[in-house]
């Protein structure tokens, strides 16, 4: 009887570890993909922001206006 209990516990732990590993490895991969995507998005937005700032500044600069 006690052997069966031990075997059941061992099998239970094995299954738990398997499920745990599968779940979290999947989560890590998904998180990693999200992180990479967000990082790419952040970089693109950073450049977009820089571009817009320059466009705004060029459009509203007054130095080239000859008279008031």
């Amino acid at each position, binding site marked *: 009887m006690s052997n069966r209990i031990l075997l059941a516990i061992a099998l239970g732990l094995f299954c738990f570890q398997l499920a745990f590993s599968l779940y979290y490895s999947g989560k*890590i991969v998904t*998180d*990693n993909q999200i*992180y*990479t995507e967000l*990082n790419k998005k952040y970089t693109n937005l*950073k*450049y977009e922001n*820089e571009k817009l*700032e*320059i466009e705004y*500044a*060029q459009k*509203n*600069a*007054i*130095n*080239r*206006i000859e008279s*008031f």
Partner: protein
Amino acid sequence: MPKKTPSIESSRSKTILITIYLCFVFILAKLFYWQIIKGQELRDKATSQLYRLETLIPKQGHLLSSDSFPLSLDYTYFILSFYKPNFKIELPQILAEIEKIKPGFIIENTKVLEIFNNPAQKWVEFKTEFNREEMQALSKISGLDFTLKQARFYPEDDLAKNIIINLERYYRRKISGRIGFSRSIVDGVGSNLLTRKNWQKNEIDGEDIQLSLNRKVQLLAETTIKKSIQTYDADSASVIIIKPQSGEILAMASSEASPSALISKIPGISDLFEPGSIFKPLTMASALDSGSINGDFICQKCNQPRVIGKYTINNWDEQFHPDSTLKDIIKNSDNIGMSYIIERMGQKIFLDYFHRLKLDQKTGIELSGESISPLKTYWSEIDLATAAFGQGFAVNQLQMIEAFNTLANRGEIVTLHLTNQKKAEYTRVFSEDTIQKMNQILKYAVENSPVSKLKEKDLEVCAKSGTAQVAISGQYTDSNTVGSYIGYSPCENPKYTMIVTINNPRSSQWGSSTAAPVWFEIAQNLEFLL
């Protein structure tokens, strides 16, 4: 079939065993070689492939004008380099692809490409700037590498350029921010992996700095002062405009006939000059405030030149004005009258006010390169007499306007500043009663002198002109002068205080006919901008 003898069998098995042993020893030796001898090198190589160390470049802070418009911005671009061993297609094909995206690339880089055609030349870098889209389109071609570069972009081109560059140096640490580092594990394609072994020290972006400079006023000041150099055939000219109550610098412009090679030089703080007659109102205010003279002072000895030792004090036009009142002394810019006023005050009181007006110390403006002249330790009678009309000592333009602004700011000296990083400090120098008297005197002087023709009728101005001779080799010369005009408008609750100096004007040496017209030209336009 003959039977194999046991000795032959044992020798065969021995051979096999020895071979196995030898193989084992060989494997051990190889393992020893890779793991012990080459171990560290391989570990380092593996770490460098597994980990990526990145420098995180912070965003630099901007300098903003008074209307929060960016006067300096960051600008990112990419530089292209070729690495021949990584080429998978021929160079002409690569160049054709680049030319499609960046027309004119080949013509722009003919010389570099000629060098690259040499078979020994494996790597080359080009000067052409690529934007991010162009870089992304070309980075798929094997053998092409792009390096990220950052530069500063000034939207207003050369407007206040010397001030901006000087300020960027002054606030370098605040504007630059702090570089960050990231060490992360990468996968086979070089993408970052999220693991606990990653380490990151974030970059800290630079701070934005708000300036008090008003773009429109600065442009007006720069264009007018540049024009004045040609109009008066002068060596250089400078103007500073400030807000009297807060000490904020609204504009600071200068122009030189032969521009200085030093781009960050600001003549308003680096060049010293003898203030001349524009100093007279300060001497008079000090005398009134200290009680050395009162408002009904009359100069009874102003009917002739004043002789002190071997020196003779005369007026600029060699005219004499007997029984001059304080108003007349300022209106006529009477050197003789001023020498009697300072005599009443005495050296000790004069130097006390000189110190309280901060004319013997740096203004502490947030710019590098401010010069001051050490004050003389021994004052003779003639030294004191000439100091009354601003001769015998030198100040920079900013020191002069800071001191004069005390009259505009109801008797309180306010520290001048260009940025929101510095707070104004107020110290009382003259009483309100003295200021009231001085306002009446200065207003009278403007209304009743030839400069009144320069101003529009409804423009109320309290100002004074000055012409200072420049000492060359210890001797004053008439040929080299500094014409200046300083004042504020209106006299009560002024909107601005302004100083204009014209160095060595050849068309006329007088401040009233060179600096004053420039002052009024700017003042007329300032009415619409402030």
